[in-house]
């Protein structure tokens, strides 16, 4: 049996502060057009062969 998948930890104290601050800062970040089109292209590759 493989090692079990660990649960995502509950964030406390400094970890929680850093996490919430990162979310706040992420609101100001946008991906480049190239990154967006790469993600969409890769999505299409797998969508095209998906059988569900």
């Amino acid at each position: 049996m493989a090692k079990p998948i660990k649960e995502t930890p509950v964030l406390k104290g400094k970890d929680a502060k850093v996490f919430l601050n990162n979310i706040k800062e992420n609101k100001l970040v946008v991906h480049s057009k190239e990154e967006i089109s790469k993600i969409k292209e890769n999505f299409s590759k797998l969508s095209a062969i998906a059988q569900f």
Partner: protein
Amino acid sequence: MNFEGKKLIRLELSQTLKPFDCDDSDLNSFFFDDCINYQKKLLAVTYIIEGDDSTVAFFSIFNDKISYKDVAKNPDASLWAKIKNTMPTGKQLGSYPAMKIGRLAVDKNHKGQQIGTIIIDYLKNLFITNNRTGCKFITVDAYSDSLGFYEKNGFVYLTEKDKERDTRAMYYDLSLLSQSN
């Protein structure tokens, strides 16, 4: 990577798994011994990319959340107050919904073809375009030798406390993608 002749399927409980070897005995063991049990117990769903004779890659995903607490007890209360003000009303404590990549692995014969990144991009786009229940983050329980891969794909660490462990908790903020569209 050319996916001609390959298919992406959702694991069925009665399915016969095709040969797979990602050069990691633990991940191989998860694929052959555990993923069906996770699915039987409704804990995770595994998706498989396969060709006629072999498995190319698999990934197992399940519902997750990122929870936080005790932030207000922190001495830096002013920062907490500022952060709280940026959140929508009614979402000032507790948790955010997430989707977790429990395990993801690529067969050794298909490494170096960006298949891992294609899977990650597929999941990112899937959960912002076809997000049926609400999901703000992708989380992952990442093996130590795959940390660079997840970093390259925009994931960041949830905590420094698991720095010395064999796997680390990381997340990707789907807002980064949804607000860029």
